[in-house]
């Protein structure tokens, strides 16, 4: 591997990802326009105003006043009263939907600054989501390797049955059961709420724990099947013929190969961690982006919902691009030609 090949390889990687990012633009544009038609055509600004003002005693004047004050009084996608480019730009499509590409989301229908809300609320979301993800991966891989070590025994069979049982229980049960046991009966942590700064851990530890436990069943079973496929491959037999012990075979050979599909599936969701968890946050009263979304839906504040849908798409596309990059990084067989 000379330096020459390195630079050329770097160029190939760069142009590959540049192309991927260019591909992402039409995807985002499509999602943007679809969301726009859902939120503005099916649910017209008049309906929005009525919902915001309360359904009783709403006069047409009140509706138009509300529309003017929230800048919903523009035509949908073509403004005949304007001249030149403004015919297109001075419209709802441009001002409310396409403007999201600048990541300036403006005010919510209730008058709050969405950008400020997001930058404040993403931290509690991350404080739950990141530790949950990391612990989940470690715990599930650990359990999966243990099942592989004891494969074809009654221990494994029992464990798989328990996994299926754990999978079959609703997430709500884990949340409510956990709150009851650890907060109400044992009184180890508060039931719900949040505090800024380092003291937040009182409030975070239970949701994180429940997030991890509720994922053990499906995660362990999935990782087990990945490792199980690896362990029947020829290179594992070669490793055993070298004299390696079963544990060494698992950790040096099986784990490393099995990590490829696991890593890439995890990388996809890393950017979306910003969005927080809808269920956990609303049940534990965590002021993150998940509960922000729930509150917005409840209050029919569609400016926030549109923003979150757009952000979700951006993060997911970003996740897919990161996945490609990870593959390139961890799997020596993947090369860009």
């Amino acid at each position, binding site marked *: 591997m000379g330096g020459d090949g390195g630079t050329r390889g770097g160029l190939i990687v760069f142009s590959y990802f540049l192309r991927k990012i260019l591909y992402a633009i039409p995807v985002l544009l499509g999602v943007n326009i679809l969301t726009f038609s859902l939120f503005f055509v099916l649910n017209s600004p008049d309906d929005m105003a009525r919902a915001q003002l309360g359904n009783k005693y709403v006069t047409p004047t009140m509706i138009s006043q509300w529309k003017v004050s929230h800048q919903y009084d523009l035509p949908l996608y073509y403004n005949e009263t304007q001249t030149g480019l403004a015919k297109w730009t001075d419209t709802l499509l441009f001002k409310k939907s396409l403007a999201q590409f600048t990541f300036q989301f403006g005010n919510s229908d209730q008058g709050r600054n969405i950008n400020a809300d997001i930058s404040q609320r993403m931290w509690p979301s991350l404080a739950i989501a990141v530790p949950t993800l990391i612990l989940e991966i470690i715990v599930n891989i650990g359990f999966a390797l243990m099942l592989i070590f004891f494969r074809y025994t009654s221990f494994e069979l029992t464990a798989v049955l328990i996994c299926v049982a754990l999978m079959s229980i609703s997430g709500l049960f884990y949340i409510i059961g956990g709150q009851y046991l650890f907060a109400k009966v044992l009184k180890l942590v508060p039931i719900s709420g949040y505090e800024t700064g380092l003291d937040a851990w009182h409030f975070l530890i239970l949701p994180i724990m429940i997030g991890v436990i509720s994922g053990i069943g499906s995660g362990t079973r999935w990782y087990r099947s990945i490792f199980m496929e690896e362990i029947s491959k020829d290179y594992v037999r070669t490793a055993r013929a070298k*004299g*390696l012990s079963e544990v060494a075979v698992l950790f040096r050979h099986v784990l490393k190969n099995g990590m490829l599909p696991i890593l890439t599936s995890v990388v996809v969701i890393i950017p979306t961690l910003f969005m927080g968890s809808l269920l956990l946050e609303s049940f534990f009263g965590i002021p993150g982006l998940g509960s922000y979304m729930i509150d917005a839906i409840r209050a029919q504040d569609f400016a926030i919902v549109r923003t979150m849908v757009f952000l979700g798409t951006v993060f997911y596309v970003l996740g897919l691009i990161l996945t490609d990059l990870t593959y390139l990084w961890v799997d020596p067989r993947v090369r860009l030609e």
Partner: protein
Amino acid sequence: MHPHRNIYTASQNDAPLEDSLSGASLSAGSREGVAASFVATSPYQPSPHDYLIQHLSVGTCTQAEQKIILNDVNLAIPHGKTLALVGESGSGKSLTALSIIQLLPTGLAYGDKSQIYVDELSILDLPEHAMQQVRGKNIGFIFQEPMTALNPVLTIGQQLAETLTWHHIAVQNISSKGQVKSYINKAFSNLQKDQYHFLAALLFSLGITEPMRCLHCYPHQLSGGMKQRVMIAMALVAEPSFLIADEPTTAVDVTVQAQILSLLRQIQKERALSMLFITHDLSVVKQVADDIAVMYRGQIVEYADVATFFGSPQHPYSQQLFAAIPSYEKRGCLLPVLGEEGGIKLSPLSKEQDNQVLLEVKDLCIYFPIKQGLFRRTVEVVKAVDNVSFQLCGGETLAVVGESGSGKTTLAKAIMGLLTISSGNILYADSAVEFSKKSDIQMVFQDPYSSLNPKMLVADIIVEGLRARGERIKNAAKLPAVFKLLDQVGLPKESCNRYPHEFSGGQRQRIAIARALILSPKILLLDEPTSALDLSMQAQVLNLLKTLQQELQLSYLFITHNLSVMSYFADRALVMQNGHLVEQGSIESILFSPEHLYTQTLVKYAQV
């Protein structure tokens, strides 16, 4: 331990049958046929330094049903000698090898009287942790498929050094060339430096010219031959005294095979290794082995030194194996089929051929573009087939020979219309091949295990061609044409309602042939139709193809890398190398007066 236990009685060769069989602890009652009537033992008086396998039996251990897979196997590999273990797939060769290093697949167990001695250790008495010391260190293992037997995400260096580290083998710094040395000094810690010097020297001795670069490569970056050399290096790293090679040359080309075999022979001499060499190919046995043991259905049926065996094989099964090898001398006859009653006879076969040209390929070129950069510009082309011209006449068999990557399969795909032609013409009976004409040319693929849809019934597989042509067939299993075809390819009518996995490899290839014949083609493209099959299956499929050719006046374009099959089966041959057609002519001229250097090499290797 028990180094002096001598299980062979004074006169081995005439040991009574009962005595031999009584060694097996599992019941041998279900065995019948040729195998049971003849149990062979070693021609040698074993010495304590030999590697011994005594009364080895392996079977399933479930209570409900006991199935014996290996039955009283007795082998002795004298110090510094090679024993070839020969048999067809499913005969238990590989299982014998795995049982020596105690790596039986789950669900199998050793019989009570089984004994294995390696370096005066009674292997089967060793617990797992002691066994781990023996694997790799006392016994080196070379696996069949280097593509899958190497870990894809670790470098060659990491995989080789692992054995050194695991067995705590200290290596001395062997001085290597200056340039390599300075490179290593920069990159590694002292221990790694020493290990990599040692490994580089080892790889170099195995014929890898850039060992240091190879150590930093991942398996997929190496060619098949290189990977097999790495595999051999992996078995030799800890300098074992006993080597097990499980079909080490099956996955590589003829020329590479010859190199690997001579390499194995050489290291075995240099290091005074004992070797158990497993193969299904009788032609390689002569090149490497001192003794040969023939295995059939889990039993050793013949055991002799190589000269005696090749001079006069004793057991009927061995004789049948020899008879089933296709060769130039057996042309015009059907090959004898294994297990057939009434001994071995060659039945003559007449053949008609007209000189009317059915298919003509003119200046055919197929290039694959390599695209790069942001806008996918074409920067280079791979010339998969370059300027190839030939003719195929009615009733003729034209062989296309060459190594993997020479463009044989690309050529076949182009004739089928599955690829875009870069330039040149393919003319079928005086007109360029059109889509509507396609049913006149059909293809039979290489691997019958993957070329048949596992979710479709045999009848549906066979009539799929008719359906694709637009015919409406409601119940394929009731179509008389299907029965007729099944009968023609030698399968029972009941096969209709079964799935491909219920058939053996040879039977599946018959299904594939029936599928091709339903459209009554004039030309069959046969892409290595027997390379995935055993010798006996190969003989059956070749016989079937010969009979069908006679009955249906078919022309064959027969792609193969096996020269003995070619010389038995084909009338004319094309020799391809790197996309070029280097030589074409009658079988006689290719075999007996090859002009091109490459053809001469091929013929030379095939005749060894």
